[in-house]
């Protein structure tokens, strides 16, 4: 496959390189800093979880978002807390960015009763209704029509709420992706489709799954909805597009599709580096790590004089403290009681 893979991968790498620096255009100092903080937080949380995962105490298959956090953070920053978000198997960053409780995330990975799904769902079934993180799911593309349905409810109620669904490039292959875009467009529903195109589905490159030359966002345009491709490793760019998209939805002008070019740093599932596995090249991985969304965001803030090393230091320690507390709590937390096994089936 590698032979077939290369050209397409390079093409998208270029797509991202086009917009290499990060620009804060149109953003207040405050929101720029908030975006960076959320970005850094998502990164540090997942780095820590990946490290702890190796202790084999989190018995739940886990797909880390390291490297892709800017999409989640930029998109969710444009949402109100009564807007709703749906995700797939790679859902930690979406959960955190929407305001999902960190302690509950860690506790869920440790299988505790205090977990986000009370130890019933695991890493791939995060939910925090209190902040509008409705559901993540391990079945590919499964929550895409569900987001559309939430948007239908908002439209019927004449509310201005918006639904967002995050999914990968692999979900684009599934039939329900097509059915859902069509549904949303026919009924002009307030839903934002966010595709995190990280070039691979498990170990399959795009070339195996989409006809050469395919631009995912241009497919979306065929459903008569506005769609754009953007640099998913530039949190500010994502935020600007997200704001436009959400404004359009709230205005009742129908769904929006955002294709975000980004890249997964760790193995498909699990905490390890997989650059030796041969399905992607070290060169490719390196070229993407050079476009680290966190570093780019920090660089932009510094350049604009909005943050100093001290600022970042303070962010780091605040986050480290929060994580340490969540982990300590989770490890102490009580297990679910087997006598509750049959509760909440109906």
């Amino acid at each position, binding site marked *: 496959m590698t032979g077939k893979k290369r050209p397409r991968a390079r093409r998208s790498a270029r797509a991202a390189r086009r917009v290499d620096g990060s620009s804060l255009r149109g953003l207040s100092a405050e929101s720029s800093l908030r975006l960076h903080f959320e970005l850094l937080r998502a990164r540090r949380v997942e780095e820590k979880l990946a490290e702890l995962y190796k202790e084999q105490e989190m018995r739940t298959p886990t797909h880390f978002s390291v490297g892709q956090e800017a999409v989640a953070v930029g998109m969710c920053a444009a949402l109100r807390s009564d807007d709703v978000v749906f995700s797939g198997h790679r859902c930690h960053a979406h959960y955190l960015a929407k305001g999902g409780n960190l302690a509950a995330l860690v506790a869920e990975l440790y299988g505790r009763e205090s977990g986000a799904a009370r130890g019933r769902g695991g890493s791939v079934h995060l939910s925090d209704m209190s902040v509008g993180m409705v559901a993540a799911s391990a*079945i590919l593309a499964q929550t895409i029509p569900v987001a559309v349905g939430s948007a239908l409810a908002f439209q019927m109620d004449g509310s201005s709420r918006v639904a967002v669904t995050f999914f990968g490039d692999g979900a684009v292959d599934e039939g329900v992706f097509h059915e859902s875009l069509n549904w949303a467009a026919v009924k002009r529903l307030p839903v934002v489709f966010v595709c995190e195109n990280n070039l691979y589905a498990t170990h399959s490159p795009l070339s195996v799954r989409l006809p050469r030359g395919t631009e995912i966002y241009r497919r979306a345009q065929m459903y008569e909805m506005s769609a754009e491709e953007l640099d998913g490793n530039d949190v500010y760019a994502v935020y600007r597009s997200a704001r436009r998209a959400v404004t359009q939805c709230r205005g009742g002008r129908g769904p929006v599709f955002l294709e975000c070019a980004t890249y997964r740093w760790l193995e498909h599932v699990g905490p390890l580096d997989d650059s030796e596995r041969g399905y992607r090249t070290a060169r490719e991985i390196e070229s993407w790590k050079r476009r680290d969304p966190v570093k780019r965001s920090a660089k932009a803030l510094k350049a604009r004089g909005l943050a100093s090393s001290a600022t970042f230091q303070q962010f780091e320690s605040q986050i480290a403290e929060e994580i340490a507390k969540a982990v300590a709590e989770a490890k102490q937390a009580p297990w679910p009681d087997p006598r509750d096994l049959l509760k909440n089936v109906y």
Partner: protein
Amino acid sequence: MRTRTYAEAIAEALVQGMAQDPDVFIMGIGVDDHKGIFGTTRPAYEKFGRARVFDVPIAEQALTGVAIGAAAMGKRPVVVHARNDFMFLATDQMINLAAKWRYMYGGASSVPIVVRSIVGKGWGQGATHSQSLQALFGHFPGLHVVMPALPRDAKGLTLAALQARAPVVILEHRALYETRGPVPEAPEPTPLGTASIVREGRDLTVVAVSLMLVEAMRAADLLAPLGISLEIVDCRSIRPLDAETILGSVRKTGRVVVADTSWLAFGLSAEVAAICAESALGHLKSPVRRIGLADCPAPVSVPLERAFYPDRHTIAAECLRSLDRDVSILPEFAPEVSAFQGPY
């Protein structure tokens, strides 16, 4: 009491349910057309309009996901499939998501969707338009599955579904749509999870569901003149199954024939036989007997269709065998050709 047809009973339940709860709405292919799913959605459409009764793209999987998402936001969507066979396209959303939602997300939310769908039969509807999916949906924890046989329950179970917390699959039977029976005007839900003894008897218990319940009643009429008294249990709730009512009757009569609208293997007849073997073994005077579809896809040609479907005569004959009585004492039947000529 006032009488209504099965179709009218469903239509009335929908109208009353929508009047009671503004979050209820109906969507499905053709729910708003001039036929209105054999009349069942037409009154709701006329009363509440297209804002709450509307047509959709032909995409069963997304349709189901859309219903789930709306339900998660507090709505009570009623999805309608003109044939339950079309739900094969939605089994992932139904079983991998709706059924598991409440449990899998820790009990914090639920998705009370109602899925109405119709079992087809007759006029050569063939292999893909005449299946009966109760076993499929009954096997997986998390869904309620009901199959009304009587107009009364067509209304009552629909009303109950509209008030349930869990997703409910209603399997209606096309061949029952024109049947008429007592239906209370007041919105009285039939409790989910309950079977009902529709005819008391002495000699043998027939556990039947949907169209086979009606056939069982007719079988009872055939056998009564021969001095044989059947007790008939309407297994209207597939999941949860009302084992107590079924077992109570079996323990009383000591004999049981199970009549299902689907195939035997891994079906309702297997589950009922199994609970008897687990919990009524000592009471059984003769082996459990199972009645269902012939073990092949549904054929189209009339003589094959006739051989494929069991009916009142099949039931009566099995009852006689269970009682060690000579089957030949049954009057010869001219197997009738159903009067059904559509609409399908």
